């Protein structure tokens, strides 16, 4: 074999294990559940192969599923907005700070390493019946009985914001870091106020980062399964909980496939729209 031909083949040899893994463990299974969603779970518990529209009919027309899907998207939207509102100024501070930037960044990375389940359950210590807030309220004489503040939709959103905020801050920070500070100074020297300079120069230039952070927050919160179980009440199920119910509890795998694909379709569309306008580059920068 010529040296050139070997040069050509080598990268494919190096890539083949990873590509095979992604193919066999992700893409083929995804195609498989598309097919599976048209099968039918019969009363005996066996699957009937074929082309039945029953699962799709149920998943798409049952108001129960529709309401929970809409509720899930609403929770994801509120979470994303809250992350943006809380995260943007913080990212701006880190990017423009002349102080200990490395320490601030390290602190920002720390939550990624702290277990998600621990961070989620930590709110029980704060807001629970015997948590810090109730203890303070009781001691201050503001309430005479502990107040149950947990297990509702706001606490689910609180938990999600707590989990996802670092993703937002990091993405906005990466975008802000790439903007020349002197641009704002130039705007100011030409007569605009600090706030105007920020609004008309820095903010528009940082929008790709905000969008990348927003996409991550939205997709991750819309797919969440644990947070509503730990911090939500019985009526706060999100769409991923329905999928789990169908697959693990009811063992109705064809229906579970259809529900999974519905979630994938909604969130996948968002990712595609994002990719069309902004490309994956910004997202990869924020993740790497």
């Amino acid at each position, binding site marked *: 074999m010529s040296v050139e031909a070997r040069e050509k083949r080598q990268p494919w040899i190096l890539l083949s*294990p*990873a590509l095979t893994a992604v193919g066999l*463990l992700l893409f083929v299974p995804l195609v*498989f559940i598309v097919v599976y969603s048209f099968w039918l779970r019969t009363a005996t518990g066996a699957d009937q192969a074929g082309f039945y529209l029953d699962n799709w009919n149920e998943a798409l027309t049952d108001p129960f599923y529709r309401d929970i899907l809409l509720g899930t998207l609403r929770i994801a939207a509120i979470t994303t907005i809250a992350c943006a509102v809380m995260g943007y100024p913080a990212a701006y501070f880190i990017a423009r700070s002349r102080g200990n930037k490395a320490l601030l960044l390290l602190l920002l990375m720390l939550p990624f390493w702290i277990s998600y*389940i621990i961070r989620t359950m930590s709110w029980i*210590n704060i807001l629970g019946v015997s948590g810090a807030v109730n203890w303070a309220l009781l001691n201050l004489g503001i309430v005479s009985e502990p107040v149950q503040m947990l297990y509702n939709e706001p606490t689910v959103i609180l938990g999600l914001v707590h989990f996802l905020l670092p993703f937002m801050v990091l993405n906005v920070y990466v975008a802000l870091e790439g903007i020349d500070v002197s641009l704002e100074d130039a705007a100011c020297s030409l007569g605009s106020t600090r706030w105007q300079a920020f609004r008309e120069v820095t903010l528009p230039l940082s929008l790709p980062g905000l969008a990348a952070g927003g996409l991550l927050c939205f997709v991750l919160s819309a797919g969440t399964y644990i947070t509503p179980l730990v911090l939500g009440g019985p009526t706060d199920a999100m769409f991923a909980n329905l999928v789990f119910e169908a697959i693990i509890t009811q063992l109705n795998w064809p229906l579970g496939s259809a529900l999974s694909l519905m979630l994938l379709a909604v969130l996948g569309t968002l990712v595609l729209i994002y990719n069309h306008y902004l490309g994956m580059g910004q997202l990869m920068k924020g993740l790497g």
Partner: protein
Amino acid sequence: MGWQLIRAYTLLVYLFMFLPVAVVVLLSFNASQFGSFPMTGFSFRWFVELAGNDAILRAFQTSIILGALTALISTTLGVLASLALVRYEVPGRNLISTLLIAPILVPEVVLAVALLLFLNFLSINKSFFLLLMGHVIFTLPFVILVVQARLVGIRRDYEEAALSLGASPVQAFFQITLPLLAPAVFAGMLFAFTISFDDITGTLFWKPGGVETVPTQIFAMLRNSISPEINALGTVMIFLTVGLPLIGLAIARRMAMQRGS
């Protein structure tokens, strides 16, 4: 004035991120019987109880074995793929990158369902193997991103020099390239281990009955009530997932610095 406001706001954001976690650590040392406020004294009793809890020790064992195997497989696949993407002109490079990153873009629940049902169709039931495959596939993109970022900074000259001095490609790889890659490999493994160790969503779908990892064990314990033992377990986890990587980072930096001098 405006700047002071942003500073105060940022401080609040950091407090929001860390205060609840700090409370977990604080309460884990609480001597009180119920492990909630107020703090009645300093005690290690919950850690002692933790050390005697067989279910938790088993969960730790499972998580560590699973995380180590995941890190090994995922990093091997990831380093090879990253080498190809960084070192060679591959046609369709962007498409390949996107395909390899895809497991991050698919919601974890969907990935979990697809893998579970497909492998079940192939008669591979819920098992440790299924769990391992699942963890490999969703850690792989992170490993590739991290390793690629590190690889870009490593020049090829040394490898080429070795080859021109008569080393075989295999010799050159193991004696020159791999040592240079060590920090990237190390970072990839650490990252894969941490993600695997922390995973719960996929794990709940894939784990066979009776097998628990640390996060699923905590989750199961939470369903009863929050006990101080969970806070103690949380503290141990925080130390393992924050303390160990920080130490690792310091070692990696040291290795890189020694090489640089």
